[in-house]
């Protein structure tokens, strides 16, 4: 023993020093920085995947699926930090997708949210997806996402009200899709899957919330009635063009409502289009007649986004006001001599026809401008506007309260008084439906009120919202917005006048019940400086309800620049025939 043992003891102290150094460093990493490292470990191993919620469907009252949700496929790449593997994946994927590798690199470079996969291609066809599934072991960061997209199985049925969904963010941006977006959207699910060092998912998702499909809308629209109305309108417009009666008869609208509830049974706008190709120029070029003028091709819904002068269909407003204010009685006869001047305004009946002494009923039946101009001049504009308001047609009563479809600024009627020095002649003109402009929706409510005795039901087309299990989430009962206490006697006079008017039409002969109605041939406001050729044709209107005794449906037919109002009755007849099962 020639070496002192203290040297070994020193070595033991060195060992303890090593222990202290190591534990000190462990303490720093595990306790002080532990949380940061744990966060990094999670980033290492988790991939966030979003499961997109299928959009709620839209059904008609007769159970037809108007808007469906179909799966499309998106190819995406998850974050890949290994350069070699990333490059290899890019090159391979480029081959499968028939893309340039540089295009993929560019998309990856632009991608911001690293923990979510970067979208490389959308709407990838199913066969490519099958191939990719087969070879995805070569591309560990490949993510195939199912993206539910909108599809409209009924194509050109009801495209205007249904609206549109943005393909990218899948938000409703027009029509019902926009107004009810929060219900239709659903809640996206997500899952967090673990990936290993090769960026391959392993095991079951550690955390997942399944997507909840959006709610379904159930409309009051009857697809068969809608189809009948649409085809009839299209047929009549075409006939008018083909027969040379009106070169401009391209567009129009039909509204069918239940006057006892405000339910909208059909709302047609022509020209119609396949809603799956709403902005598809190629589709329009291929499917829309080449000679259709651009003004007609607008996507505007002519039932509620459009106002036009309504002509003689307005006369029931003046008539009701005159009777209710007692400025005229039902029996008083006013001489209609073809042409005259009232309040310094020249007034003439159609073709300067001399109707002689006419009372209210007869005046409605023959549509005498002179009669209603006289009543209007006795009333004065204030009282006429009061009755416009009572029938839900004023400027502030936008679309008579219809708000099932969103619009940035709801279209309202044109109040001709605004910004003008009012003269007596204006009062005369508005009495028989010139100057002011209304929407088809307002006219539908107006004729419904005449049919039901003065109840202003809110027009509506969404009746029910159900969730994906079919449970009802919301049910919409008819809403009474206003109720007028019109004198039943006065109302009866007006209705009888409408019944007599309808009875004169050859299109309404041979029905098992009487119908009430009124035509309108409205001139375009010619005070405008522009003077389009089509303005020489009047808008053809018909408003009415059936049956006369016990109204079940209220109908508005509007054919733009199609000439005399009587032409619209043909469309109304098709609707009545279908609705009451009267076709041969």
């Amino acid at each position, binding site marked *: 023993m020639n*070496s002192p043992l203290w040297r070994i003891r020193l070595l*033991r102290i060195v060992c303890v020093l090593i222990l202290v150094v190591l534990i000190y460093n462990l303490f720093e990493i595990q306790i002080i920085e532990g949380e940061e490292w*744990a966060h990094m470990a999670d980033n290492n191993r988790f991939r966030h995947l979003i499961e997109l919620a299928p959009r709620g469907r839209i059904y008609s009252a007769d159970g037809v699926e108007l808007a469906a949700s179909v799966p499309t496929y998106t190819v995406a790449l998850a974050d890949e930090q290994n350069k070699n593997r990333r490059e290899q994946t890019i090159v391979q994927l480029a081959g499968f997708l028939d893309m340039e590798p540089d295009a993929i690199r560019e998309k990856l470079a632009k991608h911001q949210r690293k923990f979510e996969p970067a979208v490389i291609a959308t709407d990838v066809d199913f066969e490519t997806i099958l191939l990719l599934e087969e070879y995805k072991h070569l591309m560990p960061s490949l993510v195939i996402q199912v993206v539910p997209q909108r599809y409209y199985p009924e194509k050109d049925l009801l495209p205007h009200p249904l609206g549109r969904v943005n393909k990218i963010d899948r938000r409703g941006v027009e029509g019902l899709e926009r107004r009810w977006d929060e219900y239709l959207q659903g809640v996206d699910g997500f899952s967090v899957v*673990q990936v290993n060092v090769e960026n391959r998912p392993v095991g079951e998702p550690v955390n997942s919330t399944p997507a909840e499909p959006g709610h379904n809308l159930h409309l009051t629209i009857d697809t068969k009635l809608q189809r009948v109305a649409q085809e009839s309108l299209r047929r009549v417009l075409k006939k008018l063009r083909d027969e040379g009666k009106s070169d401009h008869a391209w567009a129009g609208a039909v509204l069918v409502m239940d006057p006892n509830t405000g339910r909208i049974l059909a709302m047609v706008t022509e020209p119609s289009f396949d809603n799956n190709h709403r902005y598809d120029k190629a589709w329009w070029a291929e499917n829309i007649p080449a000679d259709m003028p651009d003004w007609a091709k607008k996507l505007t819904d002519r039932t509620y986004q459009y106002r036009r002068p309504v002509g003689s269909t307005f006369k029931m407003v003046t008539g009701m006001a005159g009777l209710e204010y007692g400025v005229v009685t039902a029996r008083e006869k006013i001489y209609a001599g073809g042409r005259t001047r009232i309040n310094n305004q020249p007034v003439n009946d159609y073709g300067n026809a001399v109707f002689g002494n006419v009372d209210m009923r007869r005046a409605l039946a023959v549509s005498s401008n002179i009669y209603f101009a006289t009543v209007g001049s006795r009333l004065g504009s204030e009282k006429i506007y009061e009755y416009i308001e009572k029938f839900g047609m004023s400027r502030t009563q936008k679309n008579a309260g219809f708000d099932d479809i969103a619009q940035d600024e709801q279209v309202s009627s044109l109040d001709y008084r605004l910004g003008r020095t009012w003269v007596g002649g204006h009062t005369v003109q508005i009495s028989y439906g010139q100057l002011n402009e209304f929407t088809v929706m307002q006219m539908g409510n107006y004729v419904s009120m005449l049919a039901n005795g003065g109840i202003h039901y809110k027009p509506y087309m969404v009746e029910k919202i159900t969730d994906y299990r079919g449970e009802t989430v919301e049910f919409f009962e008819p809403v009474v917005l206003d109720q007028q206490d019109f004198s039943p006697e006065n109302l009866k006079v007006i209705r009888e006048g409408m019944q007599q008017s309808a009875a004169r039409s050859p299109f309404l002969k041979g029905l098992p019940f009487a119908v009430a109605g009124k035509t309108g041939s409205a001139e375009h406001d010619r005070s405008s400086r522009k003077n389009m050729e089509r303005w020489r044709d009047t808008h053809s209107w018909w408003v009415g309800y059936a049956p006369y005794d016990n109204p079940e449906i209220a109908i508005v037919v509007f054919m733009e620049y199609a000439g005399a109002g009587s032409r619209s009755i043909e469309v109304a007849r098709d609707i009545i025939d279908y609705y009451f099962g009267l076709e041969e």
Partner: protein
Amino acid sequence: MGKKLWKSYDYILLLTIVAISIFGVILVGSSSVTGESSFASLFSSRTFVKQLLWVAFGLTGMVILSVIDYTEWQRFKIPLYLFSLALLILVIFKGSSAWGAQRWLAIGKFKLQPSEPAKIAIILTLSATMAKEGRSLERWKDLLVPIAHVGIPMIVIFLQPDLGTSLIFLAITGSILFVAGMRWLHMAVLSLVGAIGSVFAFLFLLKPYQKARLIIFQDPWQDPFGDGWQIIQSKVAIGSGQFWGRGLFRGTQTQLDFLPAKNTDFIFSVIGEELGFLGASLFLLVYVFLITRILKVGIEAKDTFGRYICVGVAAMFAFQLLVNVGMTISIMPVTGLPLPLVSYGGSSFLTTMISLGLVLSVAAHSDTSIF
């Protein structure tokens, strides 16, 4: 083998060795089973089963070795030395390479890493040399023999190149010479020469990949997906263990393969991740206890040969602990040194068992009471 052998046998040391070995084999299992593992699933891993066999085989060998009087080995000093040197030279010409270095000799199915048994050979032979009657370390020339003794195999290993193992030789030699009474002046001068030599070697002798690996630990983020990858993943693993750890078999870095060499060089990262600060500290405590216990055996040895063996083995353990654990927590360069008793690997485990068998033998034959 008499009564007195069992009386002075160091059962505490034996128990510590067995405990660490079993702990090690479970961790090797945990890091070898793909995906989340459990005790039951360990046996599905070939690595685990192989290591289990090595442990059983090694422990048995160790106990057998411990009852043989260690002094017998002094006689085989020269053949042992020459044989291990021959193996080391052979590996340079016939060895299989891994990561750019010639380290393995294939003997049938078994892959031998000659630098592992060489460590034992050096401990034994240097101890024998230094324990010779009348050897002094007073003069400079007294250092020539031991330096040449260790220097030759060390240079051969350095040429493989295996920097880590050649540095173990330095630690072993330094510790034995220190305990043997080397003068402070000599130590200071040699340390200085060594330091200058290291700088020189770093600048001119090392291959670029070695250089890069040596310095990357200071800032692994310089090359997070290359040389820095291992260090970062190891730190992520250990750090995310926090105080309690993720739980045995539940470390995500380990089970999802983010951790490289997780059952060999980076086994300590698995401990850190799965058992947390608590488990890792306890493990280090037990491990350092093992080393100080070996040194205690050295203090109580009946002769200097036994003492030097214990010091050499303790130095080997201490150096590898510091370098291996230091590597996982990024305070030491990545050298590829395994953690003795714990890391997966047959030659490493067997070498360790032989060295511990020798220490146990020193303890068992240390009986100073004279009959």
